């Protein structure tokens, strides 16, 4: 509410507002990451990405009339449990037997509590009054996109990781069972959401969106694979089109003499 009146005062048209306050900052995030990762301008890259992310997250106040701002609003509302989960996982990993950066062993327990606490907060966002509310007391339309996709994909990945540990690891049954437990836990949460109504969403809505989440996951994976395949074909065909590099001419007698003199001056030493 602090920003909206200012924006309203200089408002030109809704499309331009949405472009300035949502789409340009959204484009600034990958651009900033590229600049930072490429090492061309690390500080400005990070600065651009962070400013872009903040502007996207507050877009439901800067451009409330834009439907796209619901995406930014959702990212803002899930940021707290996301940070908690990342912190918890970092504690769980580095509180264990790692060669570098080892934390106190209590970090494993506090990390586990934080991770399961974050999953608990997500559950409360579905079944209790923490549900992201966007406009006019209505649920954020992207919450029902995020929640089933997260549940479905984490169930799937944990199951794959459990089997991978069992198949490729040596004597990893206990670790595999832990991941299987996590996969089953996420599945149970998904089944509960299919049966019991949420605070602002119904079980029927969740079931409908579970279909769409499955379609989203498969579609995204296929699309990413196609883009990488197209990239590989383009690079492969370009490299294929290059002519063979010419053989360099053999060294001249003067060059050989120079190399030999260098070698001789570096070989030897006093005998012990």
């Amino acid at each position, binding site marked *: 509410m602090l920003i909206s009146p200012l924006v309203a005062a200089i408002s030109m048209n809704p499309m331009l507002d949405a472009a300035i306050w949502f789409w340009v900052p*959204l484009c600034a995030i990958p651009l900033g990451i*590229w600049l930072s990762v*490429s090492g*061309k301008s690390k500080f400005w890259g990070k600065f651009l990405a962070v400013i872009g992310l903040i502007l996207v997250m507050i877009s439901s106040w800067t451009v409330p009339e834009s439907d*796209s701002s619901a995406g930014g609003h959702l*990212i803002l509302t*899930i940021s707290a449990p*996301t940070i908690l*989960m*990342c912190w918890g*996982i970092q504690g*769980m*990993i*580095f509180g*264990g*037997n790692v060669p570098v950066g080892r934390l106190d062993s209590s970090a*494993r327990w506090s990390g*586990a509590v934080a991770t399961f606490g974050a999953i608990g907060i997500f559950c409360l966002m579905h079944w209790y009054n923490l549900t992201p509310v966007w406009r006019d007391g209505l649920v954020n339309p*992207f919450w029902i996109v995020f929640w089933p*996709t*997260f549940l*479905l994909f*984490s*169930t799937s*990945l*944990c*199951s*794959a*990781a459990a*089997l*991978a540990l069992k*198949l*490729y690891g*040596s004597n990893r049954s206990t*670790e*595999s069972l*832990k*991941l299987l437990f*996590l996969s089953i836990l996420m*599945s149970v949460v*998904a*089944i509960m959401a*299919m049966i019991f109504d949420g605070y602002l969403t119904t079980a029927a809505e969740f*079931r409908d969106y*579970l*279909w*769409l*989440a499955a*379609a*989203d*996951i498969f*579609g*995204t994976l*296929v699309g990413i694979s196609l*883009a990488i395949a197209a*990239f590989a074909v383009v*690079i492969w*065909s*370009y490299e294929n*089109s290059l002519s063979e590099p010419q053989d360099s001419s053999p060294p001249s007698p003067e060059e050989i003499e120079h190399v030999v003199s260098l070698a001789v001056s570096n070989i030897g030493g006093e005998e012990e």
Partner: protein
Amino acid sequence: MNQKRSSVAPIVFAALLPIIILVTIDIYLNSHFHNESFKRFGNAILTSYVIVGIILIGNLFFYADSRHRPMAPFVGMIFALAIGLLIGWALISNDDLLLEANSGLRAQMLSNIVHFLVSGTAMALASVLAIGATFAAITGRERGLLFEEE
């Protein structure tokens, strides 16, 4: 040393199995297929193809210093991207094939991008949870002796 030889197929199956089970339960509870899922599948393919294509073009730009910035891969990737955009434009604007609950082509494309942002965030967070839990499980065990003293 006993070397294990395993294929990737069981892991792919393990990844698909929970999704298949949950969707089967969903069909049992709902007793119908969701028609919109085909549109969502198509939109997800096209959106992720175009966005990842743009990211890869960005990588070409930033990492091509050692190759004196050749133009041919740029042109090739922009052509590949243009094909994706063209197919997207044709399928969304033609006969309601990929148009979801949006007013038109532009609204659908912008909605697809925001949708990709949200579902991508969900998948990224799920990956952090699964990969993090895997590493946490691995590092949780006491380190065993590699070699016993003779």
